[in-house]
């Protein structure tokens, strides 16, 4: 099938500008400069490009939220704070095809009349930040960034900004606060970043993969991009498969692919011929699925019908013999660790979820603990500034709804039937 992003990823030199140009790179930027700006935004809208960070908001629509008045400078921020457990696709784009992102940034910035872009990359990605910085320097040297780009009169500066270890900074308003040198606390909306964002200026925050898709859309047209996917979910997606499968990794696939095919055809099925017990389809925050639910396509609407979402495309495969209570305990510890502490329901709720699930796993669960977990969930869901509380609730509820008998057994037997280990 046709690929948008990974076509030349096998070539190690692709991350350098000369090789990128040899493969036709930066031709979309040239083409963009000959188009009216509105036309580019229109193509992205027609492409049905949905945000790849997890929320799936249509990129073209988001761009349209910027104020029409150009008197205040605007800012583009690239969300490269990839941290959703199970997700490792943006790292691949940045290390293997950094110029896809830079070209996308240049086109998007031109289309939105933006002259400063910050790439906010998670602090742990030291190597990827270095590769991005080198690629940005190459792009400046070749005249793809900086003043009067390709003789168009358009100028753009791109900066790489490293985070410092906080999952919450993947949330766009938290990311903006962090970029500004503050604690990464999410902001109350409205105002939305498109009117008041980074440094008080109108700001668009887009995921790495979303922006890296833009050059292909400009070269081939929005409709062509849309046709690679399914209705309302244009293009391909980078789907990362992790856990005990034969071929873990990132696969570029149409949203029309079945989750079953992702696991068994592309990732080669489970190791040692094991059976599937459960699968988290789109990063740790998305509701878990049972093996009888995997004949679902990877688009937002189909996944929504069965109560989950494709999120950031991080498929985590859980094999038979793995304890679901232990798996949930790992996740609940994560959310408790990463809650920023600003909203009480999340700060306290994530801590209690970690504590209660942890005691069930350790054989100290009490009668009524499961109801207590669900009650805590009810007091968190939708009651906070940002969706981190929801992100903890969705796995907690779905693990219990779908694997309730394992939780009951832990409490009844006063021990983990799987021996407290994976």
């Amino acid at each position: 099938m046709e690929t948008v992003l990974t076509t030349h990823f096998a070539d190690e030199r692709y991350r350098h500008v000369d090789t990128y140009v040899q493969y036709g790179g930066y031709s979309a930027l040239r083409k963009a400069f000959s188009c009216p700006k509105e036309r580019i935004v229109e193509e992205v809208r027609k492409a049905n490009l949905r945000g790849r960070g997890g929320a799936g908001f249509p990129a073209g629509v988001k761009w349209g939220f910027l104020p029409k008045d150009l008197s205040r400078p605007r800012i583009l921020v690239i969300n490269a704070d990839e941290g959703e457990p199970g997700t490792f696709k943006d790292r691949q784009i940045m290390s293997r095809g950094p110029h896809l992102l830079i070209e996308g940034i240049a086109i998007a910035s031109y289309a939105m009349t933006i002259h400063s872009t910050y790439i906010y990359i998670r602090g742990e990605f030291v190597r990827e930040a270095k590769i991005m910085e080198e690629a940005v320097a190459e792009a400046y040297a070749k005249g793809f960034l900086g003043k009067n780009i390709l003789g168009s009169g358009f100028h753009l500066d791109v900066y790489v900004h490293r985070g410092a270890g906080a999952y919450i900074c993947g949330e766009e308003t938290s990311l903006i606060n962090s970029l500004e040198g503050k604690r990464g606390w999410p902001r109350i909306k409205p105002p939305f970043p498109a009117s008041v964002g980074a440094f008080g200026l109108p700001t668009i925050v887009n995921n790495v993969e979303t922006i890296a898709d833009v050059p292909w859309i400009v070269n081939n047209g929005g409709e062509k991009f849309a046709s690679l996917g399914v209705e309302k979910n244009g293009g391909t997606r980078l789907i990362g498969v992790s856990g005990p499968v034969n071929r873990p990794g990132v696969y570029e696939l149409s949203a029309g692919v079945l989750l079953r095919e992702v696991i068994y055809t592309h990732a080669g099925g489970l190791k040692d011929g094991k059976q599937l017990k459960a699968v988290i389809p789109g990063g740790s925050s998305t509701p878990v699925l049972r093996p009888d639910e995997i004949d679902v396509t990877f688009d937002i609407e189909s996944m929504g019908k069965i109560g989950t979402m494709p999120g950031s495309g991080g498929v985590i495969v859980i094999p038979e013999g793995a304890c679901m209570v232990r798996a949930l305990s790992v996740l609940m510890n994560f959310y408790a660790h990463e809650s920023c502490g600003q909203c009480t329901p999340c700060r306290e709720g994530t801590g209690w979820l970690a504590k209660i699930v942890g005691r069930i796993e350790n054989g100290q669960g009490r009668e009524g603990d499961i109801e207590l977990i669900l009650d805590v969930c009810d007091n968190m869901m939708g009651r906070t500034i940002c969706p981190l509380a929801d992100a903890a609730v969705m796995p907690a509820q779905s693990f219990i709804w779908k694997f309730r008998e394992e939780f009951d057994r832990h409490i009844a037997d006063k021990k983990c039937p799987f021996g407290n280990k994976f």
Partner: protein
Amino acid sequence: MSVAFSDTARRELEEILSRYPNKEAAILPALHLAQREFGYVSDEAIVHVAELLGFTPARIEGVASFYTMYNRKPVGRYHLQICRNLSCSLLGAEHLIEHVSKKLRINPGETTPDGKFTLSKVECLGSCGTAPVMQVNDDYHENLTEEKIDSLLDRLP
């Protein structure tokens, strides 16, 4: 005891400041620089960054304490950070943490008496397809096994 940036770090900070519309936005990069310069973000380093950027130490401390990558206490020459999240755990990360803990005779969060290694359990490092994963200082080590960790730890000077 007060500390100060080297000339190189000062020049880097100047360049960093030129990227942003205000000095506040340079706090995170300046703290990264401080950690590189002094090995960890000590109270003195906080005061120095505060002076360089023109903020109160409390303001800088408030930022530094929010982010896990700023070590507010000294760490060993090699900071072994093993991911404990789900994809890594399913592929043996819990055993690896136990293995390293036994081998170095330290618990997670502790440093060996010779100051060579600090062991930490960390959250998702974004490398789930090559789990289990450990970050040693700036570098990722992927697809880990006990044997690979042993040979790596024995090799580090």
